[in-house]
């Protein structure tokens, strides 16, 4: 059973209708650009650029999708993107759980300073560190403070390893772990459980919504990453979908219908993922139940 606030049966009906109206109107505004994208992807060349735009395609042209697909090695791009994003998400969740737990529930000297340093990494704009990070990945033998650099251009690790830790996920999970009731921690200590067991058996199950949230955000960040993959990969073998889409945007010119088709199939997997994950998010909420 889905957990949520119990249905407000004492409310007058008009409140419930008003709620739906608000939600639908906002949903309409929010979804319109997406609707526009999908309908444009099914129009023919001329109708797609027609001004003012038609609300619904005059004829449906699903072949736009195969056309757009054939114009670039999208299959390869998708495999690359899935591999990179899944790896980043799993590894990042692991490091974030451990780190967040340490910050939230362990005592050690320098905690405050370290947390500030971690947060600071969120604040430095990536444009500043772009060149040093690029140099770090280059095959140069001396540019990294006198030491050889990593030489990871055109690889998978260059797109995965730098993102295995993120101050954002650590921050998010820390906030959640902080609200685990202290009584639970005391009980666990009395039972003789160490930190690792407490984390694994109690804290994590209670934090499933937070984990799924962090995981979704990380996955999405990786899926939509564009600037970094562009600068560290040149060969199509390692290219990801956003880089492919950006290049497609340039060459599509007035072939707006194809650009929209490509944009749609780049977005579709994530939407499906969210549809599925969102159900587990809800189940996760239910599973936490009423404890403590």
């Amino acid at each position, binding site marked *: 059973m889905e957990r949520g606030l119990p249905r407000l049966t004492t409310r007058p009906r008009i409140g419930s209708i008003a709620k739906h109206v608000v939600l639908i109107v906002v949903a309409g505004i929010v979804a319109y650009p997406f609707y526009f994208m999908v309908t444009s992807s099914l129009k*023919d*060349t*001329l109708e797609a*650029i*027609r*001004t003012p735009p038609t609300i619904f395609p005059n004829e449906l042209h699903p072949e736009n999708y195969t056309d757009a697909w054939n114009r670039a090695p999208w299959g390869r791009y998708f495999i690359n993107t899935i591999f990179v994003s899944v790896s980043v998400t799993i590894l990042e969740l692991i490091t974030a759980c451990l780190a967040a737990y340490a910050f939230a529930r362990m005592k050690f000297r320098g905690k405050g300073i370290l947390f500030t340093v971690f947060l600071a990494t969120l604040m430095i704009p990536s444009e500043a560190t*772009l*060149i040093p990070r*690029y*140099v770090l990945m*280059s*095959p*140069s033998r*001396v*540019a990294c403070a006198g030491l050889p*650099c990593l030489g990871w251009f055109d690889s998978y690790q260059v797109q995965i390893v730098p993102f295995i830790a993120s101050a954002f996920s650590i921050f998010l999970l820390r906030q959640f772990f902080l609200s685990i009731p202290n009584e639970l921690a005391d009980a666990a200590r009395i039972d003789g459980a160490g930190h690792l067991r407490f984390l694994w058996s109690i804290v994590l199950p209670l934090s499933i919504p937070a984990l799924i949230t962090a995981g979704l955000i990380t996955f999405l960040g990786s899926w939509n990453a564009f600037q970094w993959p*562009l*600068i560290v990969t*040149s*060969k199509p073998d390692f290219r990801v979908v956003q*880089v492919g889409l*950006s*290049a497609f945007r*340039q*060459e*599509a*010119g*007035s*072939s707006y219908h194809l650009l929209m088709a490509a944009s749609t199939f780049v977005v579709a997997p994530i939407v499906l993922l969210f549809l599925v994950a969102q159900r587990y998010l809800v189940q996760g909420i239910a599973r936490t139940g009423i404890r403590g």
Partner: protein
Amino acid sequence: MRMKAAILAAVMLVTAACSGAPPAAQQSTEADITLSGPVSITLWHALSGAQQVALDGMVKKFNDTNGKGITVTALNQGNYTQLYQKTLGAIQAGALPELAHAYESFVADYMKADVVVDLGPYKDSKTNGLTQASQDDIYKGYYDTNTFPQYGNRLLSWPFTKSLAVMYVNNDILKELGKPVPKTWDEFEATALAATKKDASGKVTRMGFAFNTDASYFNAQVYARGGTLMATDNKSVAWNGKEGIAVLQMYDRMNKNGSGYTPKSFDFQSDLATGKLAFFFSSTSTVPFMRDLATATPFSWSITNLPQAATDPAKAKTVQFGANVAIFKSTPEKQLASWLFIKWMSDPDQSAQFASTSYYMPVRKTAAESQTLKDYWAKVPQGKQGFDLIQYSSPEPNIRGQQDIRDVILNMITEVITGKSTPDAAMATATTKANQIIKDAQ
């Protein structure tokens, strides 16, 4: 302008004198070696879509036929800004490719790190260079733009993907109006106004002209009105003269009477194709996009030179742009291999072939004799229309800071067409800023 011509004449003279003499400087020895074994080189470029396919075709042909063991790998690095970013990063990392696609202003920046090879010795080398006749066959403007006065007038890059600013015309609208293609600016303004149609509520349904805020088209219009862009000493701008003001005033008038409008992204292309627009200025590289549109909705169009102030057609002018290719310092063998590739690309047959598949302009006059190009022009008459105008095209400034000056010009034009400033005020602000930029960048 005369000073610049004099310098250029001197350079040509010295070059001519040297082509017979034995090489003396260290670098000219480098230019005359022969390759001893197979060489692999990498080209970074910013071409995508059909143009990338065209380049890949040329690269494959070179790899298969060069007979010297040279293998070229061409890699797309995104758009020009991204390519520039990466090349700068590569300079910091000491990991440059052998050659890169580059605008003149990029080359000026790369030269600050002294990583660009001087192509003069290669061009003039008896072993590996071009004959005098061949050199003269290449349009002079292409040498000019790749010669950098701030670096001792050295030839630091070679023409590669050149195009020029032209006027696109919807012939159907002109026929309907019974007017010819405008040749002067007054005719242009009048025809654009005549083409403008408004509906009952006063909303414009057909426009005369699509404004460009891009600096290159401003420069083109200044040239076409008989002006110059830079002072002869390259220390201040010259586009703030009466010609530049005239451009802004025309934009102002056309904005106010509704014959001009500001398109978003590529709107102007589809607007012309669907009969909503009579004229726009764009690069010859827009031809393939217009052709695509023409297959979807047939319409009659052509390209022609911008309206001119000069009555003598031989004095017509427009702007030449597009990117070039620069060779980075590495080993003598790699440098030579790179030179041989770009030289091959600019030879008559290849220049014609690349032009017919990529829609860029051939770099030499005799390309017109090639059958490939003639066949292409039979299919794409606008290709020939563009080619005929190359001789009238002049380069834009290639000094450091030019990219920033382009932003200043963009803002200047935007101020006028959004009504924030009068032409005179906008010009004054822009001139001060531009001159300051030049001062700071040297």
